[in-house]
C-alpha cells in the first residue's frame, strides 16, 4: 500500500489481483445480482487509489478495503430502492443462466447431484437476499472473507457483541430457510 501511495502502478495491480475476487464476491452477494457489480468493485479500487493518501498503515488494509466495498454496496442497494427498475439485463441473464445449465458437467458430478446443488445454490442466494443488509454483510464477511468479529465490527461501525448477534441471527434465519438441505440425509 505504501508503494501504491508512491504511485507504483505495478503494486496497485498486484493489490487488485489479490483482493478483486473477494471484493466482487462481497459486492455481488450483498447487492444480490451481477448487474453493475463489477463496476462497483472497480470503483472500490478506484477509491482505494484516490484515497491512498488517507490510508493509515497502522490499520489493517482489508478492514479499510471492505469498509469501502461495504459503503459502495449499501449505496447501490439504496439507489436501487429509490429507483426500482426492471432491467432487461436481469431477464436476459436469467435466460442465459437456464441455457447454460442445460449442459451438465458429467465429468465431475452426477446429474442428480448437480441439480440438487443448483437448486440449493438458488435457495441459498434467495435466503441471503432475504436477510437484512447488515446481517447479510456480516455473515458474508465472516464466512466468505474469513474476517474476524473485531474486523467486522470495525467495518460496520458497531460493537463486538452486536456483530456476533448479527451473525448468529443470520445463521439462525438461514438454518430455518434451508432446513431441507441441512438434514444429515441431504448432506450425504
Amino acid at each position, binding site marked *: 500500500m505504501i508503494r501504491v501511495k508512491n504511485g507504483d502502478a505495478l503494486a496497485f495491480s498486484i493489490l*487488485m489481483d489479490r483482493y*478483486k475476487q473477494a471484493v466482487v464476491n462481497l459486492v455481488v452477494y450483498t447487492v444480490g445480482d*451481477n448487474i453493475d*457489480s463489477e463496476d462497483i468493485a472497480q470503483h472500490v479500487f478506484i477509491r482505494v*487509489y484516490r484515497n491512498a493518501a488517507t490510508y493509515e498503515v497502522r490499520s489493517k488494509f482489508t478492514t479499510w478495503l471492505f469498509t469501502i466495498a461495504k459503503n459502495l454496496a449499501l449505496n447501490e442497494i439504496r439507489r436501487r430502492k429509490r429507483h426500482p427498475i426492471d432491467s432487461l439485463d436481469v431477464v436476459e441473464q436469467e435466460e442465459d443462466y437456464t441455457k447454460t445449465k442445460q449442459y451438465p458437467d458429467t465429468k465431475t458430478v452426477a446429474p442428480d447431484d448437480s441439480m440438487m446443488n443448483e437448486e440449493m445454490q438458488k435457495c*441459498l442466494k434467495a435466503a441471503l437476499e432475504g436477510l437484512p443488509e447488515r446481517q447479510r454483510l456480516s*455473515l458474508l464477511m465472516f464466512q466468505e472473507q474469513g474476517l474476524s468479529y473485531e474486523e467486522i465490527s470495525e467495518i460496520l461501525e458497531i460493537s463486538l457483541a452486536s456483530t456476533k448477534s448479527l451473525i448468529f441471527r443470520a445463521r439462525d434465519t438461514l438454518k430455518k430457510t434451508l432446513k431441507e*438441505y*441441512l438434514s*444429515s440425509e441431504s448432506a450425504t
Partner: protein
Amino acid sequence: MRGSFEQLIEKSRKKTLTPEDQRLLEELFAQDPTLKSQWDQERRLSQILASLPQVPLSEDFNQKVLQQTFWAKDRRPARRRGFASWMSALSEKHWAQAVAAVCVISFVTFGAYLQHNQVQKIRETADALSTVANTAAEIATVQESDLEAIQILGEYEQGSSIDDDLWLAMVSD
C-alpha cells in the same frame, strides 16, 4: 455444557478442531444426543455457505481500473495557462455557475441600458418642455404689446374727434 458446546461451534467456524476438542465434543454428544443434530446442522450450513460460487470476473478488470487511475493521470493534457485555463475550468467543472454568471451579467447590462434610455428620454422631454415654455412666454409678450396698442388707439378715439376730411379722402380712395 451448553457454553462448551457453543464455544466449540464458534471454534469450528474458524479452524479445525484439535483432538482434545473432538474428545470434548464426543463427551457432550454422549451427555445430550440432541446436540449431535445441532452440530451437524451447523457444520452443514457452513459447508453450504462455503459452496457459494466465485463470481466470474472480466479479464480486463485491472485494465479498466488502471485506465481511470494511473493512466488517466498520464493522459491528462498539459495545464493551460491564463484565460484559456480559466475558461476550460469553467466549462469542465463549473458550467452551471458559468451559465448563471452569464445570465446575471446579461440581465444587469440590459437593466443598465434600459435605465440609461429612460434618463435620456426624461432629459429630452424636459428640454422640449422648456423650449415650449420659452416660446409661449415670447408669444404672450407680443400679444400683450398688441393689446396695449389697441388700448392706446381706443383711448385716442375716445379723446379726440376724427378728421372727417381725411377720413373721406381715405374712404374715397
